[in-house]
């Protein structure tokens, strides 16, 4: 099998180099070419799935001319991504016909075409980050970043889902499905998405209360976010936490913390534990420009620098701490320098790739040398929370200006189009699917019931020893804690 695969790859290379003969074996199949085949292949994951299914049939002998027909077409069209995608579509239609006519042997070449298309999806693309890094007591990382079509497409899809989710949460709040506090992250998506591209499951993230998208990035689902926001059973905290208290221990996400700044020493503690247990991971302790003046942050910085803890302090500077602009709350709003003896970088937080590059750099640094500060220059479109219109302390022009010039999703869209990774139509399809995913999650979440009344007394302790807990009327409601 392996030998044959090698042979296949060699013949593909030969074909691509231009020396091939076209045998008109299946020339007469124009009528069945499906124009919309391309549109259906909206994700490389789908391709992979199909390819894998097909590979299981790949014992059958290959049909060289089938291969020529499809590969030859792609090469003849200049080998561009669009051409490859078209080639794959043709391969699929040929395969369907072949299966109908019993030509199972056509599957193998189709698989080869698809695997070829797949490998181009993960081929590295190098791009330059437009906004330079600013450094404090450390060298700046390179502005040249390696990415791939797959990565950029994932950036787009994930951020789009996050954007739709936050906008849906806005309406939910206004229709009173969500109560209390609701702090929305739209505009800042590039920070958590870019971070995830540089992290793995050994790393931890802890953040403040603007945590819906961070939770998603760490492996949470839109359903459990919506359900938690609405206080339902299927919420990630069983409906008992709410907007500010989302956690995912397995995914390395420690919340979701309501007290401004408290999460920073907690983050130092997570890093301490990682070092203690010799886990090769870092903790990203995230906080905002409002929290950047908290005393406990500096206490955490001191200890983590003293003890060389692998913690990265990530300041999401959206320039407003609730209604107070940074210049009104900080004597020095150069938050990447506030670590003093701790080196820092200022990063364009609206650029996924810049964030990815900075976090990758900081992770390598932190695992060797201890803490680093990353200041992400970002922006939130909504006010501080749903009770804040967000326009009393900043102008609408400022908000729309950022949206027009720096929106993180639009930036990736432009990259996808200019690098021929996706067409306008394909992006539209991706958006439609993302919207559908969010809507489905929303309707499912609305169907989720409220927690049972007994849940009032669960999880007070991990081990309750049967201690008694009382309800409002002590004579009526007495429970033994499990």
């Amino acid at each position, binding site marked *: 099998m392996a030998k044959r695969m090698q042979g296949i790859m060699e013949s593909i290379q030969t074909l691509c180099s231009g020396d091939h003969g076209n045998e008109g074996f299946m020339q007469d199949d124009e009528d069945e070419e499906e124009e919309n085949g391309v549109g259906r292949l909206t994700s490389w994951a789908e391709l992979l799935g199909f390819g894998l299914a097909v590979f299981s049939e790949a014992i059958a002998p290959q049909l060289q001319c089938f291969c020529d027909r499809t590969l030859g077409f792609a090469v003849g069209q200049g080998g561009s991504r669009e051409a490859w995608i078209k080639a794959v579509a043709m391969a699929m239609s040929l395969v369907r016909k072949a299966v109908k006519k019993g030509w199972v042997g056509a599957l193998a070449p189709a698989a080869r075409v698809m695997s070829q298309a797949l490998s181009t999806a993960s081929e590295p693309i190098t791009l330059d980050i437009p906004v330079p890094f600013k450094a404090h007591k450390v060298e700046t990382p390179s502005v040249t970043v390696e990415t791939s079509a797959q990565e950029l497409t994932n950036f787009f899809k994930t951020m789009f889902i996050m954007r739709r989710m936050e906008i849906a949460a806005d309406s939910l709040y206004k229709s009173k499905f969500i109560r209390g506090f609701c702090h929305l992250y739209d505009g800042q998506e590039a920070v958590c998405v870019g971070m995830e591209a540089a992290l793995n499951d050994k790393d931890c993230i802890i953040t403040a209360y603007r945590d819906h998208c961070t939770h998603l990035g760490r492996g949470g689902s839109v359903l459990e976010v919506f359900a938690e926001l609405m206080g339902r059973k299927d919420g990630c905290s069983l409906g008992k936490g709410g907007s500010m208290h989302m956690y995912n221990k397995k995914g390395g996400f420690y919340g979701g913390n309501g007290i401004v700044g408290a999460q920073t020493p*907690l983050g130092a503690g997570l890093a301490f534990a990682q070092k203690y247990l010799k886990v090769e991971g870092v903790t990203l302790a995230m906080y905002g420009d409002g929290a950047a003046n908290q005393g406990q942050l500096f206490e955490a910085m001191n200890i983590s620098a003293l003890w060389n803890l692998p913690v990265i302090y990530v300041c999401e500077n959206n320039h407003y701490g609730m209604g107070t602009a940074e210049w009104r709350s900080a004597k020095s709003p150069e938050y990447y320098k506030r670590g003093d003896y701790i080196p820092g970088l200022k990063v364009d937080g609206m650029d996924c790739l810049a964030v990815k590059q900075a976090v990758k750099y900081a992770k390598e640094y932190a695992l060797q040398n201890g803490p680093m500060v990353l200041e992400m220059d970002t922006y939130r479109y909504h006010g501080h929370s749903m009770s804040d219109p967000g326009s009393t302390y900043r102008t609408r022009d400022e908000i729309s200006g950022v949206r027009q010039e720096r929106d993180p999703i639009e930036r990736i869209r432009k990259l996808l189009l200019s690098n021929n990774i996706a067409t306008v139509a394909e992006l539209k399809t991706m958006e439609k699917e993302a919207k559908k995913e969010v809507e489905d999650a929303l309707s499912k979440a609305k169907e989720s019931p409220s927690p049972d009344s007994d849940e009032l007394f669960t999880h007070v302790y*991990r081990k309750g020893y049967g201690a008694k807990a009382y309800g409002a009327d002590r004579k009526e409601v007495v429970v033994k804690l499990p």
Partner: protein
Amino acid sequence: MLAAFGKNRALVSSLLRGGNGGDGASAAAVWAVSKRFMSASGDSITVREALNSAIDEEMTADSKVFVMGEEVGEYQGAYKVTKGLLQKFGPDRVLDTPITEAGFTGLGVGAAMYGLKPIVEFMTFNFAMQAIDHLINSAAKTNYMSGGTINVPIVFRGPNGAAAGVAAQHSQCFAAWYGQVPGLKVLVPYDAEDARGLMKAAIRDPDPVVFLENELLYGESFPVSKEVLDPSFTLPIGKAKIMREGSDLTIVTFSKMVGYALKAADELAKEGISVEVVNLRSIRPLDRETINASVRKTSRLLCLEEGWPQHGVCAEICASVVEESFYYLDAPVERICGADVPMPYAANLERLAVPQIDDVIRAARRICFRKQDKRKATA
């Protein structure tokens, strides 16, 4: 006896340290040998030794347990409770922190969230006020807010309440404050047995435990049985202990005041008042069953605490007894507590600011409707 114990303990300590930092197996073996020295006649250890040995054993048994706080390492502990631990377990597990309670407490809570088992020492619980947000909002509430996803297996320990002459900012009792919070467990050991058993239980517990010690008890010796000295010895959390059985009056108290209650009980016995002394051991969960069972037996309650009376631990105990055992009471419930003032420095004022044994005796007589001192005159 104490000298013999001390000598043997020194031998044991040197054996433990002489090796490669002391691994679990050899430590256990040495401990087993040393137990033979301390067997039949019964031994006494100080509360300090009880705490030290408990922490030592738990650190030996579980590598996830570590100690942090100000001066816990090289200084050997501000009150010497962590003496020898740095030498035995090394600087990775016994950490001297800067004087930044908010920062290092948060760090401890974060480490516990990840899965380690920190023991955070506060030099006194007065300083823990700087970190109280982490005790309450980061530690106590997290298991609940996360729907059980993240538990916080941490122990916060240190001296609580009045010492001697340390004045207002260093003398507050925090039992009532922490005892109010669902999600916390609050333990208040009195003697060496309490200290050992409750500390081990606290370290093994998967929830945040506030362990309120008393500085003046550290040096006091108490007899302990073989069972107490065994490394597997623990006490159940949430169970009070009847220190002394009686039939006329129940005195419920905790920490240093248990000693006062016992002394008062001895005095009252001479005039025919039989006092039952309940040592709470646990403020939260509160052992209402034991308290109420005792009051139903004696039909009289006197609560005793060193801290301020308003909204204090005694207030809760009185409420519990009135709610559950009202018809068994032959007299109103009473409290003897600290005075409603910040702790003064002058010795005579300080004496007036905290309960004295005479206060307990007087109140006991009052509850038993005795007007005068009917003790037989002594020589």
